[in-house]
């Protein structure tokens, strides 16, 4: 608890670069993450559109689009290109959109504001965590343009298809056997980036690994900051159990990131070593055969990657949902004009999801060849994770029960989160049941489930959070009518896109298939596949409404005022947008964040801080 007296106004004048580019202000950093995240959202979405175009009309000549593909490909998408599309779609969405938006953008923006601090505990480290994303951005975008294309082994990058390279012939040229001859052209010498005998994207895969290492380091820096800030820098009176759920969610998410990311980073390094220095962490002892090409003898295990990868990537999915759950709780309480139902159970269930999240990674590997007896243990833990998630859903229902609901755009998005998360969570139970998983693993049922929790839940949560906190970020309101149009269309189209995936998944249509129309058991699912594709294209177009709303409102939006939503948490007492240093005086917190409809006051809301009126720097109105 550091600040007892107001901090002296900074004497420095940072100038444009210091203020908006290399800023240590958590709000600027948060907005930087927001912008880059939204740009990558559109890149990832475009990749998805291309995937759906192939799947909706697998053999066909698509008007206009076919001409964009080279004649040498028969003017259609090539299967290797398709593999790159879905691999990069997922990689971009997970590592460059959802996690940076939830943790990087909102985590950064909200934490100091909501706990009453001036900034993060380590502002320079915070700035580094954003700028470490830039090498990641550059590397991942450049991977699209290297020979062989960007990574195409799925976002899961399983060895050996992802990790195998040709054995080294140091200094020996394949065509002559002669020792390296300086007169030979450069490109015949051992390439800097190794090509793969398994598939075209050997170079792209190396860049993928490097990019993700940067993302991991950025996130680890961020998580250290968040944990320290939340523990140490809360304003007086802001006890742990008076923090808004958004902060609890960010806190627990940061712990997840700090503990799980190192494992992924190590795994990425191991695969990078396999691909560049010909180590054999993931190469089995007998080596591998690809026609005329034989790899070196190994000494490793492909399955090792899966354990290391999923040990992070399972907690990662909770990293991608917990913050959204926190935001949704705050938004629903605000627009129900009613206290959140079951504050402590909500906190405990966040912790329960996170804790259980560390012991279920094997449920991605039930069919992998790992000992099936391990499967039983993972199965039980996985099924139990449904419990805290269910508790949260019931508590949200309890919040809207007896409420006085304001149907604003953020509220609609938050309600969509709740109703769609029910579906995503319930579909998870099917795959947790191991015998059923035998049939539905690697089918569209899994794709449906993951999109319900990532798009229909996390992304609606993100949209809700953007509409909700936009006024605090920019001092303007986004357009409510257009926000509602965007919401309604997105809700309908996304259900039309992702719900039928459950059905084709029950039909056992495999995922990651360039062309499903060859197989007897999937041929008849054509109409559904085409329907999904059309809905997906319409869904993609709808997002342009959001972009327009976001950008136009920056310039022409209505001024928001301090607290347009009449919400209780501390950030709404600061001015809109909040200044550097956030609060001119230290907030003193008297109550929890959900005192709505309290009989103690006339208004139906009651800001957390005793000195709320002084926190915006505006003249204090005459006492009443």
């Amino acid at each position, binding site marked *: 608890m550091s600040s007892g007296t107001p901090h002296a106004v900074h004497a420095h004048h940072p100038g444009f670069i210091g203020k908006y580019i290399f800023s240590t202000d958590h709000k600027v950093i948060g907005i930087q993450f927001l912008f880059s995240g939204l740009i990558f959202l559109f890149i990832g979405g475009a990749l998805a559109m291309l995937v759906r175009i192939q799947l909706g009309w697998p053999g*066909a000549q698509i008007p206009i689009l076919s001409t964009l593909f080279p004649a040498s490909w028969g003017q259609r998408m090539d299967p*290797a290109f398709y593999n790159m599309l879905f691999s990069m779609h997922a990689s971009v969405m997970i590592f460059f959109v959802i996690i940076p938006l939830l943790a990087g953008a909102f985590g950064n923006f909200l934490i100091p504001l909501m706990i009453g601090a001036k900034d993060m505990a380590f502002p320079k480290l915070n700035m580094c965590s954003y700028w470490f994303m830039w090498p990641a951005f550059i590397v991942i975008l450049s991977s699209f343009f290297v020979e062989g294309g960007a990574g195409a082994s799925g976002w899961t990058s399983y060895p050996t298809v992802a990790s195998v390279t040709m054995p080294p012939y140091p200094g020996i040229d394949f065509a002559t056997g002669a020792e390296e001859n300086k007169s030979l052209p450069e490109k015949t010498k051992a390439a800097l980036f190794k090509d793969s005998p398994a*598939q075209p994207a050997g170079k792209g895969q190396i860049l993928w690994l490097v990019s993700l290492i940067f993302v991991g380091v950025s996130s680890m820096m961020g998580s250290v900051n968040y944990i320290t800030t939340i523990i140490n820098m809360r304003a007086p009176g802001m006890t742990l159990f008076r923090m808004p759920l958004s902060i609890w969610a960010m806190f627990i998410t940061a712990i997840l990131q700090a503990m799980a990311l190192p494992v992924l980073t190590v795994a990425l390094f191991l695969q990078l070593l396999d691909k560049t220095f010909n180590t054999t962490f993931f190469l089995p002892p007998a080596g591998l055969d690809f026609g005329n*090409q034989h790899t070196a003898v190994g000494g490793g295990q492909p399955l090792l990657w899966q354990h290391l990868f999923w040990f992070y990537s399972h907690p990662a999915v909770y990293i991608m949902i917990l913050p959204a759950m926190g935001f949704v709780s705050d938004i629903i309480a605000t627009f129900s004009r009613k206290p959140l139902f079951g504050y402590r159970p909500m906190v405990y269930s966040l912790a329960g999801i996170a804790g259980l999240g560390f012991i279920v990674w094997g449920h991605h590997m039930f069919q992998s060849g790992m000992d099936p007896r391990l499967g039983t243990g993972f199965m039980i833990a996985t099924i139990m994770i449904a419990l805290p998630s269910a508790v949260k859903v019931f508590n949200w229902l309890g919040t809207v029960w007896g409420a006085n609901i304001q149907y604003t755009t953020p509220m609609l998005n938050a309600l969509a989160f709740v109703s769609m998360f029910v579906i995503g969570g319930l579909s998870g139970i099917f795959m947790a049941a191991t015998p059923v998983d035998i049939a539905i693993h690697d089918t569209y049922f899994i794709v449906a489930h993951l999109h319900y929790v990532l798009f229909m839940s996390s992304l609606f949560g993100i949209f809700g959070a953007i509409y909700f906190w936009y006024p605090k970020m920019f001092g303007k309101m986004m357009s409510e009518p257009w926000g509602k*149009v965007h919401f309604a269309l997105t809700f309908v189209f996304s259900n039309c896109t992702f719900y039928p995936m459950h059905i084709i998944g029950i039909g056992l249509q495999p995922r990651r298939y360039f062309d499903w129309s060859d197989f007897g058991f999937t041929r008849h699912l054509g109409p559904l596949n085409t329907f999904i594709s059309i809905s997906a294209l319409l869904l993609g177009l709808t997002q342009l409404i959001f972009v327009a709303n976001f950008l136009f409102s920056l310039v022409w939006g209505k001024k928001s005022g301090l607290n347009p939503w009449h919400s209780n948490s501390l950030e709404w007492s600061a001015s809109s947008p909040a200044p550097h240093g956030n609060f001119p005086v230290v907030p003193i917190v008297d109550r929890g964040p959900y005192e709505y409809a309290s009989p103690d006051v006339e208004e139906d809301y009651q800001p957390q801080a005793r000195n709320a009126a002084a926190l915006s720097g505006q003249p204090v109105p005459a006492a009443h």
Partner: protein
Amino acid sequence: MARQTIAGLALLMLSTFCMTGCDNEGYSDDMRYPARTDPIFIKAPDTQPYTVDPPGALNQLPARIKELGGKILDPKDLTAKKSQERGQLEKRLEEKFGTPAHPKVDGKVGDSEEDLAEVLKLRDEDGKDMLAAGSKLFRRHCLHCHGLTGDGHGPTAEWVNPHPRDYRQGIFKFSSSNQPAGTRKPRREDLTRTLRNGIEGTSMPSFGLLSDSDLDELVSYVIHLSLRGEVESVVMQKLLGDDNLEDDSVVAETDKQVGRLANYWVQAQAVKSLIKPDPYPGFSEKSVKNGYKLFIDQSQAGCVSCHKDFGRQNNYKWDDWGTIVRPIDFTSGVFRGGRRPIDLYWRIHSGIRGSGMSAFFGPLNSDQIWDLVNFLQVLPYPEMRRKYGIEID
């Protein structure tokens, strides 16, 4: 407002179900076979390669061959005058062979009046054109390796090794035709067999799950691509080498080559061209041991001179497509051209065109070839080798 939007959209959604019928699987009508721009391989360098080219290096091979003293002819070297003739060549090829969406083979067999397309079974018995159907199947199943013109340079080609076959040399490895080596073509059944079984140990998969008629259509289309590619290649070599053309006309030369080369295809399909071995003498220890002797004895078949150490220490060499191969390792049990005794007989009898495996019928008689076949069947299995006393270590 949201309600009306939703109602309208629901109607739109429902109407999309009927759109699933609207697809066109073939090439677009305005596509043309592109003119050949990659170098034509003529002669290999004298130096021996160290190993196969690494993934992604396929396109470097012509330049390397040239550097190392081999011979290639590059269409980029066509002078301005010749470019005009090259344009005439492309135009004539289109007249004779059509476009990817509408392929055809227009010509007569040699000097006769017989229609080439019928004799080569590029039209089926009812007169229906197999080539258009074959082209759709090719685009879907084959193009990404074998390329639009059958050049073996599809988008995935440089990443697989052995590389996909370039049909434009008109050379195919696995043939049961007894034509002389320089003009041997595969029989339709050979191509069908390759499609049905795949080529074990390579990236050519089995297409045995396609129907018989689909396989027939694909074979017809492959023959079409090969004929077209070979005609283009031969005429272009003449243009690049400044040779005299038939009647000094590109069109006449093209027509001549179509007739000449198609004739070899026609000959290959004749019943009398099929290699018919003498009856199989049966599998016996004596035969296996005799085969062993033939294999290692340099004065007889002397297989061991190329298949060093029974194939385990073979040297790499350049093949007739300008790519890198080596003789098979017999101890692996993988036979690319087919593992049946008859397949092995055909390979030894007439060699494997393009790869350096010579024909041994002549130096060896039919029984001796059968002995070798029996020996090769035993060779991969340690148990069987012990049983017949074959020492290979």
